[in-house]
C-alpha cells in the first residue's frame, strides 16, 4: 500500500486519529511520519500536517440575521451592543452564545442561589424521574417513599402560594 501523504513510498505505519468524533486510520511511510513528527507519537501533530487544522473543532458559521423568538432582537444587534434583548435570547441564540459563555466563565451550569419556586421545581422534577424509575424497577417501597416526599413538597408549595410568601434558599 502506498503512503497516503506522499503517494509514492510504501506505507509501513498505520496511524489512528480522531477528527470531529470520527476515527480514521491512515497509512504513512517512515519519511512522511518523521516529517510530521509522528516519532514522538504525536497524533495531533500528524493531524496538523495532514489537514492543517489540528484537533480543534471548526467554529460553526453564525447566522447574523437570526432573531429572538420573543423580543425579535437579531444576533447582529447583540454583536453591535453586547447586550441581549430579553431572557428568551439565551434560548434563541443558544448555539451562538455557547462559545462566548465558555470563554468568559469557569463553568457551564449555575450552582448558586435560586428563587424559591425554581428550587422546588427542580427538586420535584428530579423526584418524579426517580419515581418513574422505581416503578419501572418494581421497587415499590422506594416508590412510596418518593411519592410521599413529592406530596410533602407540593403541599408546602400550595401553602406558600396561599400566604404569598416563600423562603429563598442560599447556596
Amino acid at each position, binding site marked *: 500500500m502506498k503512503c497516503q501523504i506522499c503517494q509514492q513510498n510504501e506505507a509501513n505505519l498505520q496511524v489512528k486519529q480522531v477528527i470531529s468524533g470520527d476515527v480514521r486510520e491512515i497509512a504513512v511511510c517512515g519519511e512522511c511520519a518523521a516529517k510530521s513528527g509522528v516519532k514522538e507519537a504525536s497524533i495531533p501533530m500528524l493531524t496538523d500536517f495532514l489537514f492543517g487544522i489540528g484537533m480543534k473543532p471548526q467554529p460553526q458559521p453564525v447566522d447574523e440575521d437570526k432573531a429572538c423568538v420573543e423580543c425579535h432582537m437579531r444576533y447582529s444587534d447583540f454583536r453591535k*451592543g453586547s447586550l441581549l434583548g*430579553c431572557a428568551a435570547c439565551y434560548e434563541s441564540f443558544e448555539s451562538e452564545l455557547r462559545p*462566548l*459563555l465558555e470563554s468568559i*466563565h469557569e463553568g457551564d451550569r*449555575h450552582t448558586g442561589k435560586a428563587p424559591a419556586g425554581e428550587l422546588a421545581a427542580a427538586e420535584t422534577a428530579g423526584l418524579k424521574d426517580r419515581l418513574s424509575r422505581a416503578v419501572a424497577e418494581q421497587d415499590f417501597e422506594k416508590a412510596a417513599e418518593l411519592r410521599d416526599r413529592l406530596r410533602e413538597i407540593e403541599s408546602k408549595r400550595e401553602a406558600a402560594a396561599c400566604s404569598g410568601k416563600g423562603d*429563598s434558599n*442560599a*447556596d
Partner: protein
Amino acid sequence: MQIDTLVKSPGCWLSMREDTGIVVSSRVRLARNIRDVAFPGWAGEGERVRVCRELRAVFDRTETMAGSLFLDMSELTALDKEILKERHLISHELAEKGAGSGLIVSEDEGISVMINEEDHLRMQAITPGMHLEEIWHGLDLLDSEVERGVGFAFDGRLGYLTACPSNVGTGLRASVMMHLSGLKLLDEAQAVINGLERIGLAVRGLLGEGTEASGNMFQISNQSTLGRSEGEIIAQLVCVVGDLVDHERHARARLFQQRRTFLVDHIGRAIGVALHARILSSREAVDLLSALRLGVDFGFITNLKARQINEIMLLTQPGHLQKMCNRILGPEERDQMRAGLLRDRLGEVKLRE
C-alpha cells in the same frame, strides 16, 4: 432625604468605620431582571417607566430599604449625577439614562439599587474594610425580600439571566479596593496583578472599569459568574485578598527595615506638598493622599485617621468641590480649591520619625 443632605452627610459609607488599612472597602453587587419583560436596553421608555414604578413599590415594602431615598435620573442635574458617581452609588451608564431609570439608596449609603441600568436591577452593598461575607449576607437577604414581590428571570441551567452574558449565573460581582503602596514602591505590584489575572480575577483602578490604578488603589473582583456558587466566589476572593494583604505587609516591612530613609522621605515630601501647594490636580491629590495613608498606617503620622483621608479623597473630586461652592468650576479653579481643601484639612499634620 434629599441629595443635598446626602452630600453633607457624615454617615457616608466611607467614613462609617475606623478599620480601613490595606483593604479600603468591600463591595458586592447582584444583577437581576424581571421575568417576561425585555431588558432595559431593548425595552421602550413606557415599559421602563412601568418597571421602575413597580420595582420602587417592591423596595418600599422591604424591611432593608425602609426610609430610603429614590432619585429619578430624569430629574437630576449633571452635577448631582457626578456626585452620585463619585460616591460609587451610580455608574456612568445609569447617569446617561433618563425617564424610567433611577436610584434607591439607604440612609447610610451602604445599600444602593440602580433601576433600569443594563439590567432591571443592580443591587449593591458597600462598606469600608474587609467585610465581604457580611455584606453579601445583607444583600442576599434583600434579594430574597425583593424576590417575594417580583418574579426574576431565571433558568435552571444558566441561573439568573442578565442583559450581558458576562453576568449570567449568580449575577454576582464581589470586589475589594486595596491600597497596595508598599508593593508599588518596591515595583512589585505588576507581578502581583499578572498573577491575579491568571487565576481569573479582574484588577481595575480606583474608578472602576477602564481606569488605571491611581493613588496605588487597586480594585480586585471576580470575573466569572457562572459555575461557582455565591459562597464559593466570595470565599475565593477572601482567600486571595488575605494573601495579598500578607504580601503588602511583607513589602511594607521590607521598606521599613531596609529602606527607611526612602520611606520617610516619600511620606515627608507628600506632607510638604499637601501643606503648601496652591494648585493640585485630582491625580496628584490621590497620590499625596496615598502617601499620607501609608504614613498613618506606619505611625509616622499620628494626628490623622484613615477615615479622614477617605473623606478628603471624596471631597476633592470635581463634583463634590463644585457642590460645596454651589457653582460650576473650571479645571483650574478646581485645582486651586482642591489644594485649599487639603491645606485646611491637613494643617495640623506632622511627621514623627
